[in-house]
């Protein structure tokens, strides 16, 4: 039985400028049958999340646009359905999980859809306990949803889905932000084929091998069916980086750092200790660790957004405070939405340049050159770009800042390997030292000369 079917679907979002609306995709056709697994691959901005949103009847209802062709769920035109009627049929694990959270506590977030399904309290309790245990969130059940790390937020969304147990789940880049253990767990769950799954992804990883009944790939604005064997070995075919030797070699170090943070909503304390860490200009270093282990916390300390309880950071041998760290180390957040706020791509890129004593012509030429390098359009509305494109914009912003060091937190999530490699390459060519945080060990070790790991609250 066909659960979800797209037949020659074209879609374009409503244009808010004088320009004619650009089609996101055209003639898209695919289908998912009961207990089937489907993979849809495509670069950022090609319309993967739009497919997810249309399938759940959220678009064009909440994001106006024009849809032609037929998108149907269990034989009914989706345009005639309401999202709230589909809770037990189709569920979405959203790419930008943080935006979709609607309650303040982890347990309440899981309970909400179950209350909508009018389940009895005993059944809700049973499902909450199971899903919390399955996704390793028991200890966080009383935590404020805002205080979860990126990976924990993703697991919360997977727990919500687990508790609903719908007939079909759309996993929008859901392997991203998960550590190796939970990536394996998600893979095993999909492989069991107890329900149907559609996975949307920017690149084919080892976790996807042999998992899907059909694979579709975006090519020139439409979907094309392909076979696993025909997919290019993207990671293996990445060209080596050209790293520029900097004449003035800088070293950034952390020594005997100790940090402690109390979770407001539970009162529990998180500790991080960094006996020794160093990175040189032109060097690429990886940092790995489980979800919630403290990778982002270390990044916030390194760039001066937090101050350690004890210990010191050094640049070129001199102890430096948070104010200096902020202006020497660029921090590429895991979630681009925490860093993109201005109306257009041009406004975002111009922000850093506005402090520099450059002529208007020079600024304009720098903006155009950067937009071209990162394949961005200066007039585009920044917040309306796709998630992956917003990550690219984030990279372009930091490229223009010319920092000595960069921390790239989960750069490979929502981007193809090639795009992530290009960003690293562009920053390396300027001689910057790069700390690469990634759960994709294969990707990280392709570039990194050394690997740090956080285990039991200690970075080594």
């Amino acid at each position, binding site marked *: 039985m066909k659960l979800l079917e797209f037949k020659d679907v074209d879609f374009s979002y409503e244009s808010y400028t004088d320009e004619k609306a650009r089609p996101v995709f055209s003639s898209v056709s695919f289908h998912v049958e009961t207990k089937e697994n489907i993979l849809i691959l495509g670069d950022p901005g090609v319309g993967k999340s739009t497919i997810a*949103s249309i399938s*759940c009847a*959220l678009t064009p*209802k*909440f*994001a106006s646009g024009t849809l032609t062709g037929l998108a149907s769920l269990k034989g009914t035109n989706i345009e005639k359905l*309401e*999202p*709230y*009627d589909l*809770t037990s049929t189709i569920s*979405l694990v959203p790419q930008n999980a*943080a*935006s*979709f*959270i*609607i*309650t*303040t*506590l982890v*347990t*309440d977030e899981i*309970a*909400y*859809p*179950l*209350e*909508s*399904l*009018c389940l009895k*309290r005993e059944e809700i309790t049973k499902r909450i306990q199971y899903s919390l245990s399955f996704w390793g969130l028991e200890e966080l059940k*009383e935590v*404020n*949803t*805002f*205080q979860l790390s990126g990976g924990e937020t993703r697991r919360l969304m997977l727990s919500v889905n687990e508790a609903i147990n719908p007939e079909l789940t759309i996993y929008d880049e859901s392997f991203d932000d998960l550590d190796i253990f939970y990536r394996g767990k998600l893979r095993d769950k999909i492989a069991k084929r107890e329900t149907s799954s559609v996975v949307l992804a920017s690149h084919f990883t080892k976790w996807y091998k042999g998992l899907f009944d059909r694979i579709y790939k975006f090519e020139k604005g439409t979907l094309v069916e392909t076979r696993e064997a025909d997919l290019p070995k993207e990671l293996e075919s990445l060209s080596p980086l050209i790293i520029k030797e900097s004449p003035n070699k800088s070293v950034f170090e952390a020594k005997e750092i100790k940090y402690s943070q109390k*979770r*407001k*909503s539970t009162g529990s304390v998180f500790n991080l200790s960094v006996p020794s860490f160093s990175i040189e200009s032109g060097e690429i270093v990886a940092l790995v660790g489980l979800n919630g282990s403290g990778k982002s916390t270390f990044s916030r300390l390194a760039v001066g*957004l937090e101050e350690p309880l004890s210990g010191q950071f050094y640049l070129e041998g001199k102890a430096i405070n948070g104010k200096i760290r*902020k*202006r020497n180390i*660029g*921090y590429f957040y895991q979630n681009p939405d*925490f*860093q993109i*706020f*201005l*109306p257009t791509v041009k406004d975002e890129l111009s*922000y*850093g340049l*506005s*402090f*520099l*004593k450059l002529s208007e012509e020079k600024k304009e030429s720098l903006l155009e050159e950067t937009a071209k390098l990162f394949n961005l359009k200066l007039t585009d509305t920044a*917040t309306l770009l796709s998630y992956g494109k917003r990550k690219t914009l984030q990279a372009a*912003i930091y490229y223009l*800042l*010319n920092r*000595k060091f960069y921390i790239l937190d989960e750069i490979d999530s929502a981007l193809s390997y090639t795009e992530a490699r290009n960003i690293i390459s562009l920053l390396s060519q300027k001689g910057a030292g790069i700390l690469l945080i990634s759960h994709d060990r294969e990707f990280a070790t392709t570039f990194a000369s050394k690997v740090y790991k956080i285990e039991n609250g200690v970075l080594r």
Partner: protein
Amino acid sequence: MKTNTYIKGNSLYHKADVRAKLLFTLLSCILIFLDPTISNLYCYTAFAVLLCVFSVGIKETFNNIKLLLPIVGFMILFLPLQSQKGEALLAIKDFVLVSDHALNNLLLVANRFIFISLITALLLQTSTNNDLLLGLRFFRLPYNAALVISLALCFIPSIASVFSEIRESQSLRLPNPEEGEESKKGRFKKLFPSLTAVLVYAIKSIPITASGLELRGFRGKGARTSYNKLNWGFSTFTQIVISVILPLIIFTVWRNV
């Protein structure tokens, strides 16, 4: 949507029933408008500060007050506009900067503003969103209205947190030390894009939150079950009675002092 108001704790106010806290908040906010005496308003504000300190601690109380300071600053800036009446306390030639009438008005408004903000913040910091929703439902508010109020109550403070995030993000985009410095004028000018960005965030959050709710089965009208339940017993009844009587006693006593 980001909601970050609840702070776990074991204070008496944390343990109090959410229905009693809702009544207490509402009544005390009404009563301070019925009392125009400055000295009494100081007492109300001091009471709110103390309640905050004992419930969420000195640091969080300080953070709550810090968020109010820019608005109090604006009130002070507009003081000369109200200084046309009353005796001049500070003047430049014929232009009265501060009059006793304007100063009195400022103290009235500022005290009420600080009291209402602190007592509301305390309600949000000691109750979860779901408890608030259940509490509002107890007072026979329709589910939709209760949901909107509880979301709004948590959403408004989260705007302040987004503002801090934007400023944090902007601080990471300052030039390299050798390339230039940000002037004070520039720092002030950057406030406007930050405020616009907060507005954009707030507007953008509306359809995303609506999508999230409908995706999780929220349908406006229609049956729902409830996982969380508020208990009803002698203790709750007593707390509710106290929450009504306490503000009335304070009000009566202070009016007659």
